[in-house]
């Protein structure tokens, strides 16, 4: 019953001095809000990153064209071409999926609507490598690719851009630079990967794109889908071998392409986000400690103000321990309430941030419980001294206190 009465006394004391309690807890509130939103943003970023890695299929390497240097001097640019991709695809040493692609922006017209969209030349296998699923209609076939057919698949947001719906535009024609293409499918919503938004793009067969739209066999990149248990170094070596041979690069010559391992890249990015999150959270944590000093200060004031009450409680039989408990509970409660308010604000900020940026909202519960526990510990630590002072008050003197 004593604990219950201590909690009730603490609540009523915090309520009675509402404004003062709020101002005291302000640093705690701000600190917790900062910790929570920063950790939340960091975690959401990581989630987005994970999602984008998942988007790339099990594991993807990307080959990009790059400048070839001879004797340290940049000497032109040897493009990646469709034949390179075919050479890679012919190799059956590895169980890999070769997904060459080219892309460019074109004006697109449907009825009276216009839009500028990124058109990608894909093979059917590209969709598998990127993990894209068809929402309505169908994917194009290898036969349509070889026949340079004028068929097109839309990202999920494209019908909206063209002021129509997926259902309505399916099997209709749209115009790309005056030539008509039949919409055979619309993708499911894939979500932004952070640096690309597949929902806004359009997809035609690679050979159609090469011949009819871009008029070139130069590729933007080649994605290589590999399973997770593949030896990446060995795969990279094979790619190098094949492409160097194709590009006539002799021994000692530098590559005119580069190979990105996305998972490596995202590991780095994840590490960087992690360090950044820890840094900001640490700074915010310091503000919690500063908040704790404020709480200690106000608790000392509270002890002085309530000297007579403490004297009375002692006269009625309160031991030092029970007086200490009362004031520690008050300090801890003040910090916990501040923490709860801070969490509420932090989560709201995170929600705002993620919805504005089209991110997944993700708040690790461990961070919520962790920061509440930390607030309670701050209250406990900084409440001890004032509480001790209250407990040590001489009852005879306290009762005389005016």
């Amino acid at each position, binding site marked *: *019953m*004593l604990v*219950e*009465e201590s909690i009730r006394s603490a609540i*009523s*004391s915090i309520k*009675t001095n509402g404004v003062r309690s709020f101002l005291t807890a302000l640093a705690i509130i701000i600190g917790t809000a900062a910790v929570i939103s920063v950790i939340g943003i960091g975690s959401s970023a990581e989630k987005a990153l994970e999602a984008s890695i998942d988007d790339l299929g099990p594991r993807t390497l990307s080959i990009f064209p790059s400048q070839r240097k001879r004797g340290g001097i940049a000497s032109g640019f040897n493009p990646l071409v469709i034949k390179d991709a075919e050479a890679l695809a012919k190799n059956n040493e590895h169980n890999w999926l070769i997904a060459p692609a080219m892309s460019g922006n074109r004006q697109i017209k449907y009825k009276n609507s216009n839009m500028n969209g990124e058109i990608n030349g894909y093979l059917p296998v590209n969709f598998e490598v990127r993990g894209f699923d068809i929402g309505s209609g169908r994917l194009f076939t290898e036969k349509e690719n070889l026949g340079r057919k004028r068929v097109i698949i839309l990202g999920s947001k494209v019908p909206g851009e063209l002021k129509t719906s997926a259902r309505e535009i399916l099997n209709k024609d749209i115009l790309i630079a005056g030539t008509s293409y039949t919409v055979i499918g619309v993708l499911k919503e894939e979500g932004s990967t952070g640096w690309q938004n597949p929902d806004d793009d359009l997809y035609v067969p690679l050979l159609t794109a090469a011949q009819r739209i871009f008029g070139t066999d130069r590729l933007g990149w080649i994605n290589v889908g590999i399973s997770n248990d593949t030896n990446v170094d060995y795969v990279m070596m094979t790619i190098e071998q094949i492409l160097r041979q194709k590009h006539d690069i002799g021994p000692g010559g530098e590559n005119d392409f580069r190979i990105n391992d996305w998972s490596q890249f995202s590991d780095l990015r994840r590490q960087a986000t992690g360090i950044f999150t820890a840094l900001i959270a640490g700074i915010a944590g310091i503000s919690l400690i500063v908040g704790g000093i404020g709480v200690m200060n106000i608790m000392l004031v509270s002890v002085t103000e309530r000297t*007579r*009450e403490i004297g*009375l*409680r*002692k*006269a*009625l*039989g*309160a*031991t*030092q*321990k*029970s007086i200490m408990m009362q004031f520690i509970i008050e300090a801890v409660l003040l910090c916990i309430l501040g923490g709860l308010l801070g969490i509420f604000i932090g989560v709201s900020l995170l929600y705002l941030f993620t919805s504005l940026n089209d991110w997944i909202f993700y708040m690790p519960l461990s961070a919520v419980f962790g920061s509440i526990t930390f607030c309670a510990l701050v209250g406990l630590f900084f409440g001890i001294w004032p509480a001790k002072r209250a407990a040590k008050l*001489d*009852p*005879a003197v306290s*009762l*005389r206190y005016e």
Partner: protein
Amino acid sequence: MIIKTEALTKHYQVGSEKVEALKGITFSVERGEFISIMGPSGSGKTTLMNIIGCLDTPTNGTYFLNNKPVSELTDDELAHIRNDEIGFVFQSFHLLARNSALENVMLPLKYAGENKKNAIIRSNEALDKVGLSDRSSHSPSELSGGQQQRVAIARALVNKPSILFADEPTGNLDSKTGEDVMNLFKELNDNGQTIILITHEDSIAQQSKRIITIMDGLIKSDIKE
């Protein structure tokens, strides 16, 4: 004998000056007595009450409460004795403003570790004894001065103390309500409650059964009815 003191002294150091608030108090109290400790302001009455009420310890001298020596007990042991054996009534009531009358009366039982159900029953009984059972949910600010003092008396009685101390209990009351409170004390004493009343007013002191007068920290007279 409930109380037996021998040559109690209490000295305070105020700056460089030594104040001798009590200079050697020897007296004893039997169960069921109704005593007034009377004297002018500053004579040492409150200091004496604090010591025999176990709120303070003497500088010198010995003090037996219920035949147990008290002078050498620790803070927490004194707290338990105050909770168990002693009830206090103060001039300025000392009620917790944010709590109801009932909660104020329950406070000593909380420190005694009584369970809530029993505490409520016993507190209501105590409020009934002082005639305030219908005011149990009122907060102090909703009660008159006389009612507040009676809540404080109920709180002092709720643990069935061996001694009830009252330091100028009518000092903040008008003469009519002061009279009511005095009548309540008499009634309690008639039912066997030992009471030590502290006052500087002769008219109040005259209503008790024994008057101890102190002056400058010494007993000047000790007169039984």
